């Protein structure tokens, strides 16, 4: 069911907005689970989140333990071999999952919040404020992300995870803002919103109770998109050496592996494993988004079987 039609049926009445939130969530989860692709995505994501939470417990060794033979290939004791400094690669992979996923989700969150603030405001209001916000959105939309980030990161005084998260987050919101703006400006003229306004509801109340529930799927889809973008960008920056090399993450693992000539040394695991983890984690986000495409675009339904 399309959420918009649910709302239209409630028409002008102000009261039944609260159940709408729960209904929206339930509908999203149902649709996602019904769709085979997004179901696979959800399961994969759950696995990664589990590893992220328990990685340091699951890891056979401490990532600070550099007492092993250096640059060794895979063995029974070290499934993915050891680093040039004698750390266990498999343990790094498990422990690094947390910071990679935190990076990904934090970027997604920052980008989504900014996109909502700017996109929704700009869509709901009219006049100069809309013009200004749209202009800013469009400017940032055409700013080439990676080069801008590289320039910013290279000037930055220190290199750490929080910094990377913030600069990636602050440069990846415009696409979401543009989508949200157009959605809000459509919804603004719908009957149920006009009715609420006529009933004397405040703008905030209308936004939170009437408009937001109707774009929740768009917001979450935007979040997943930004999270994927954030992960890939952060990994790219870390690979170039612009991240924090002391922080164990998938991106910094690739950086160290590349610098230690892992491939030339025959250390497959060290290069392949982090790359595959990034790809599979990213894929889980893309797969979940298939389900959201369906929610926001009913014509795509029927993809599941």
């Amino acid at each position: 069911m399309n959420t918009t039609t649910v709302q239209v049926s409630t028409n002008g009445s102000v009261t039944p907005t609260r159940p709408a939130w729960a209904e929206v969530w339930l509908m999203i989860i149902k649709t996602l689970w019904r769709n085979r692709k997004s179901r696979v995505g959800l399961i994969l994501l759950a696995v990664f989140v589990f590893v992220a939470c328990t990685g340091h417990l699951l890891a056979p060794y401490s990532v600070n333990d550099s007492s092993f033979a250096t640059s060794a290939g895979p063995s029974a004791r070290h499934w993915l071999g050891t680093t040039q400094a004698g750390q266990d690669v498999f343990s790094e992979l498990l422990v690094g999952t947390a910071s990679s996923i935190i990076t990904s989700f934090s970027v997604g969150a920052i980008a989504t919040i900014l996109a909502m603030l700017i996109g929704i405001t700009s869509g709901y209001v009219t006049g100069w404020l809309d013009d200004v916000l749209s202009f800013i959105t469009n400017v940032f939309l055409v700013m080439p992300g990676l080069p801008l980030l590289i320039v910013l990161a290279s000037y930055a005084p220190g290199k750490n995870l929080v910094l990377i998260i913030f600069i990636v987050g602050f440069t990846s919101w415009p696409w979401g803002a543009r989508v949200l703006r157009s959605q809000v400006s459509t919804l603004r003229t719908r009957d149920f919103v006009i009715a609420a306004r006529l009933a004397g509801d405040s703008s905030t109340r209308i936004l939170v109770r009437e408009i937001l529930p109707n774009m929740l799927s768009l917001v979450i889809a935007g979040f997943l998109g930004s999270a994927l973008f954030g992960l890939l960008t952060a990994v790219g920056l870390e690979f170039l050496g612009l991240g924090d090399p002391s922080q164990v993450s998938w991106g910094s693992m690739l950086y160290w592996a590349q610098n230690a000539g892992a491939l030339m040394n025959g250390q497959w695991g060290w290069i392949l494993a982090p790359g595959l983890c990034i790809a599979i984690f990213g894929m889980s986000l893309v797969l979940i988004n298939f389900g959201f495409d369906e929610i926001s675009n009913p014509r795509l339904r029927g993809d599941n079987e």
Partner: protein
Amino acid sequence: MLRRTALLVSSVFATTLGVGSMAMASTNSSSSMGTSPLVITADYGSPGLTENFNPYVSSHLVGANYMYEPLYVVNSLNGQQTPWLATSYKWVSTKKLVFTIRSGVKWSNGKPFTAQDVAFTFNLMKKFPALDTNALWQYLSSVTASGNHVTFMFKTINVPDWYYIATTHIVNEAQFKAVKNPVTFTDTNPVVTGPFVVSTFTPQEYTLKANPLYWQKNKIHIPEIESIALTTNTITDEMISQGKVDSSSQFVPNQQKTFIAHNPKHFFSWQPYASPWTLYMNLTEFPFNNVLFRKAMAYAINKERIVKQGEYGYMIPSNQSLLPPTMQNGFTSSALAKKYNYSYNPKMAAHLLAQMGLKKNSKGQLLGKNGKPLTLTLETPAGWTDIIQDCQFISQDLAKLGITVHVQTPAASTVTSNLQTGQFQMVDEGAGSVQPWFSYHAVLSSSETAPIGTAAPSNYERWKNAATDKLLNEYASTTNKAKQLQAMIGLQKIMLTQLPVVPLDYGVWWDQYTTLHYTGWPTAQDPYAAPSNYAWPDYLLVLTHLKPVN
């Protein structure tokens, strides 16, 4: 591993989109006719080479070092002097130095080389101060030629500066006189005295051919040098492991396996030790202003682990003298070095810290003067992966003593700027210079330091000590070897007892070579020159030693 990129700003590229023909000089196609070219990688082509052989511009191609020559070639490993464009020199007084110029040398354009060219070279630097990158005119008052003599007059006594004078690239007067601005001159067609002249140039490679007019023609058996642009380290590693390059001078991770094992009969590496990587501490603040703390650092850091696990076993732990092992002979006292042997001893370190009066809290954290846990920062530039790894080891070592150390990796310029202005706590950086006196002068002289907030040239830790300055001065103002040795031992003793800085491990001269096409490379048995192909002026010795394999 990027440190060479950072240290040696080479690599430049130029010209020729659409110009020139297909100069097919393909790699190592050792034709049955004649000798194959010497293939090297020496310049970073990022993204391509730019054509620039002007030896005074910092971004010149390494090839300039194979074409221009100095008055003397000085072995960077042990200071051994070989007369080159000069046949001898003499200190008439400590303020007057006279070189006798070699006769019979010709420029590559056929004109004779004269003492006038030498005097011109030095006076050019006076006229264009931006060319005087070694600040020679800070000490010189005049350079004049008469007959086959060139006379250097000093306004400030500085005997060691002989080194920088003797190893200056000598240029052709007629050529450089015609150049309007030698600072931005790219010198694409150099007139030289050296063994090679420019042949071809593309952004990916340049070739030099043997100079038919060279004064030591009988010593040159290389018809052509092919210098391929270094791109990424990985790709260069892959190229050298396939034997496509005769000489390469870069950091190759785990080279025993990734390079030598591919052809153990012909692939070699001899990497002698150079100046040490050193822990700089800011001596103007607590706790570094206390010598007990600095001694504790020298005992606390496991240098053995740094060289084995951080540096692939390429380096060795350094002693406290600051000089590379090859230079210690004849400049320091080995008895002293033995007496003050700061080998890894965490117990001793803990004892020294206790002696300072530092206490631990219940969590085992060492407390500072204000009663709060002691937390320090250790900086090293982003991208220097091996040094970053070393710093992480240092951080772990100090954690065992209850000191929290945060490793920070800002951009290289930020680290340099922090060092210069004294806005740092600890930094792991290379210390020292080409010759022993310069090493001590750079790190210890109060003339090389500055107040916090003002840029200090090289005495970053801000060591100010009258006795040190006196010893440096004594050495610089005498030509008497025995007096010089006395001064050096005095300086060594200050390093050993006061520990203004803590040397960690010796840097190395990076080197990979093959004997597929040429033999006669410098080795541990025959250390006639530093082996790296970027080593100036050493590589002139290598080029005059190499012989083709039949």
